[in-house]
C-alpha cells in the first residue's frame, strides 16, 4: 500500500496497462518529454520509449482520428485531450466517429480506445479551460464515460477503460490532481458501471462525481455533526454504464435523493438520474429529488466568482438540511 497523488495515479494506471499489453500506445500534446501540462504522465516516455509514448502537434482532430484508426486496426490507444473544453474542436470523433462506427458497420468495426482529459473547475482558468463536460459525452450512444474521484479509482478504472472493447472517455478532474490517497500495491483492475457507496447513511442519498465526491463527503460529515442527519454518499464513478441499481437501492433505503453536479444545470447528468428515479422509484420518495448544480452560465475566472457558482460544501449542507426539514 502506498500513498499516491491522483496525478501520479494517472501515470501508474497507464504504465500498468502499457507494461501488460504492447498494443497500448499513448499520445497527446506535451505528454511525452514534458510529462504532460499537469505532470500526470511523467516518466512514461522514459519507461516505454518514443514509439509508444508520443508528443503530437496541437491537432485535436488528428489526435482523436489517429487514435480511432489505430484502434480499428488492432491497437489500444490512449489519447490525451489536454483540457476537456477542447472536445469542442474535435467533437466529430467523439460524437460521430468513435461511437457510431460499430453500429453503422453492423458490428464490423471495433473502436477500443481511451480518451483522457483534464476536466472541471478550481484552477481559475475561466470559461474555456474549466468546464465540466461529462454530460457532453454522456448524451452520445456508443460511448462509455468514466470520472474517478480517488487515486485508487484512477488506477483501477484506467485499467478497466483500457481493457474495455468500447470507446471510453476518461475525465480526470484537474482540481483532484494534487489530492492523495492509498493505492494498494500490484495490479488493480476495477469495473466500469459500478458506483460505490463511499459513506453509508439512511436520511438521504447524495450522488456525486469527481470533485463533487469529496465535497459531498465533507457535507455529509457536517450534516451529521451539526444537524444529526445521516446521509449516504454515492460516488457514481461512471455515467455510462450507469449503475442504476445502486442508485435505486439507495433511494429505496433513504427515500430522499440529491445530486451534486459540477456541470451547468441544463441537461446535467443529475437530470437523467432524477428522471430514472421518478419513473422507477417514485413511491419510494418522501420528497422531491433536488439537484445541486452550477448555474446555467459560463464559468467566471476570478476565484471569488468561481467559488460562488460551483456547488460548495456549505451549499450542499444548506440545501440538504433545508430540504429534509421542510
Amino acid at each position, binding site marked *: 500500500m502506498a500513498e499516491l497523488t491522483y496525478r501520479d495515479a494517472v501515470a501508474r494506471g497507464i504504465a500498468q496497462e502499457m507494461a501488460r499489453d504492447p498494443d497500448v500506445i499513448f499520445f497527446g500534446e506535451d505528454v511525452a518529454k514534458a510529462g504532460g501540462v499537469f505532470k500526470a504522465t511523467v516518466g512514461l516516455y522514459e519507461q516505454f520509449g518514443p514509439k509508444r509514448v508520443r508528443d503530437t502537434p496541437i491537432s485535436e*482532430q488528428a489526435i482523436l482520428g489517429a487514435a480511432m484508426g489505430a484502434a480499428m486496426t488492432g491497437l489500444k490507444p490512449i489519447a490525451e485531450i489536454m483540457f476537456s473544453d477542447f472536445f469542442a474542436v474535435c467533437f*466529430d470523433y467523439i460524437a*460521430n466517429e468513435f461511437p457510431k462506427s460499430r453500429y453503422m458497420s453492423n458490428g464490423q468495426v471495433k473502436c477500443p480506445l481511451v480518451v483522457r482529459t483534464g476536466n472541471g473547475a478550481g484552477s481559475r482558468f475561466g470559461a474555456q479551460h474549466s468546464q465540466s463536460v461529462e454530460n457532453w459525452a454522456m448524451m452520445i450512444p456508443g460511448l462509455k464515460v468514466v470520472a474517478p474521484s480517488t487515486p485508487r479509482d484512477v488506477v483501477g478504472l484506467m485499467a478497466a477503460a483500457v481493457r474495455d472493447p468500447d470507446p471510453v472517455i476518461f475525465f480526470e478532474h484537474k482540481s483532484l490532481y494534487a489530492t492523495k490517497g492509498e493505492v494498494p500495491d500490484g495490479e488493480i483492475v476495477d469495473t466500469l458501471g459500478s458506483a460505490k457507496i463511499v459513506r453509508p447513511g439512511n436520511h438521504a442519498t447524495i450522488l456525486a462525481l469527481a470533485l463533487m465526491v469529496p465535497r459531498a463527503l465533507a457535507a455529509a460529515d457536517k450534516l451529521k455533526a451539526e444537524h444529526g442527519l445521516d446521509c449516504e454518499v454515492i460516488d457514481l464513478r461512471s455515467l455510462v454504464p450507469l449503475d442504476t441499481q445502486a442508485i435505486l437501492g439507495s433511494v429505496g433505503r433513504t427515500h430522499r435523493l440529491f445530486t451534486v453536479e459540477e456541470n451547468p444545470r441544463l441537461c446535467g447528468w443529475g437530470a437523467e438520474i432524477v428522471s430514472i428515479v421518478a419513473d422507477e422509484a417514485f413511491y419510494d420518495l418522501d420528497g422531491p429529488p433536488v439537484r445541486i448544480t452550477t448555474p446555467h452560465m459560463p464559468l467566471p475566472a476570478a476565484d471569488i466568482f468561481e467559488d460562488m457558482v460551483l456547488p460548495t460544501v456549505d451549499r450542499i449542507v444548506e440545501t440538504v438540511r433545508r430540504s429534509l426539514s421542510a
Partner: protein
Amino acid sequence: MARKPVRAPEPSARAKLNDDIGEELRLRLYRMQVELREAEQRAFDLFLQNLVKGTSHLSLGQEAIAAGFATAMKPGDLSFCTYRGHAHTLARGVPVEKVLGELMQRDNGLMRGKGGSMHLTSVEHGVMGSYAIIGAHLPIACGAALRAQYRGDDDVSVCFFGDGTTNIGAFHEALNFAAIWKLPVVFVCENNLYMEYTAIGEVTAVEHPAADRASAYGLERIVIDGNDADVVYRTATAAYARARAGKGPSLIECMTYRHSGHSRADPAKYRPEGELEKWKERDPIKIYRARLKQFGIGDDVVAKIDAQVMQMIDAATEACKAAPPPAADILFTDVYADGGWAWRN
C-alpha cells in the same frame, strides 16, 4: 478552372503488349471501370424507380481513380472512403449485390441497412469505412498507418476524398501528422471541379486545391489525369512503394469530373453549358476502350466483358429486389461491443 491533363506516354509499337501494365492487368482495369460505371448507373435507375432509398452520391465519370488505386493495392491494404464511396468499395472486391442491397435497404445489404449509402464498410475487403463528415477519415487513415508503422506491418492506408475536403481543418491536421511521423498513408484527392454545388476554384485560394498545398507539408506536388486508369495505376504503385519503404505519405490530386450532380437531389444546373459534354469526350471508359484497341485487344473481347458485367449486375439487382427488408432483431445490436445497446443496469 484551368487544367493540364497529364497523358500517359505513348508506348512504342514493340512495347505495346508487354509494357509495365500488360494485357491481363489492363483487362482487369477495364472490367472494373465498366463494373463501377454500370453498378452506379443501375443505382441511379433504381433510385428513379424509388427502390434506392435515402440519398446517394454517384461518382459516374470518376471510375479510373477507384479502379487504378484499388488494382494497385495488395490484399491487406486499407481503403478509407467518403460518402461518395460506392466505387471505392466495389473496387476492393465487395460484391455488387451487397452494395446495391445496402442502397436499397435490404437484409442482404453490406451492413444490413444499418449504415446506408454513405457508410459502406467491408472490413474483410479492407474497406475500413465510408465517412460522411468531410475530412474525418484523413486522421483515421493516419491512425491505421501508425499501427502499421508501430507493428512493422506492410500494409498501406489509402484515403480518398474530394476537392472540397482540402478546405477543412482535418485535411491539414492529417497531412502534417502523416508527414512528421512518415506514416505509410496515401491521400488521394479526386478533384472533380465542384465541392458540392459550388466550383472549387471559387472557394479555394490556390488553383490545385490539394497539390498546391503539398509543399506546406514537405510533400511533392502531384497532379495527374484521373481519367486515365493507366496513369492512375502507375501513380498509385509508386506511392504505395514509397509508403512501404518507410518514406512517408503522398498526396495525389487526380483531375476528373463527375457526370452526375452532387447527390441524387442535385440536377447540377450550375455547370456551364458544354462543360459536361467536353468532359464526356474524356470519359475514362471511352479513353480505356481506345487504349485497349491501341494495344491490339479486339472489340469482341471488350464486348464480352461488357456483357458479363451487365449480366452480373442484372443478377445482383434481381437478388436485391427479392431480398426482404432488414430483420428487426438486428435493430438494437452492436451499439456496444457486448452486442447490445444497454447503457445501464
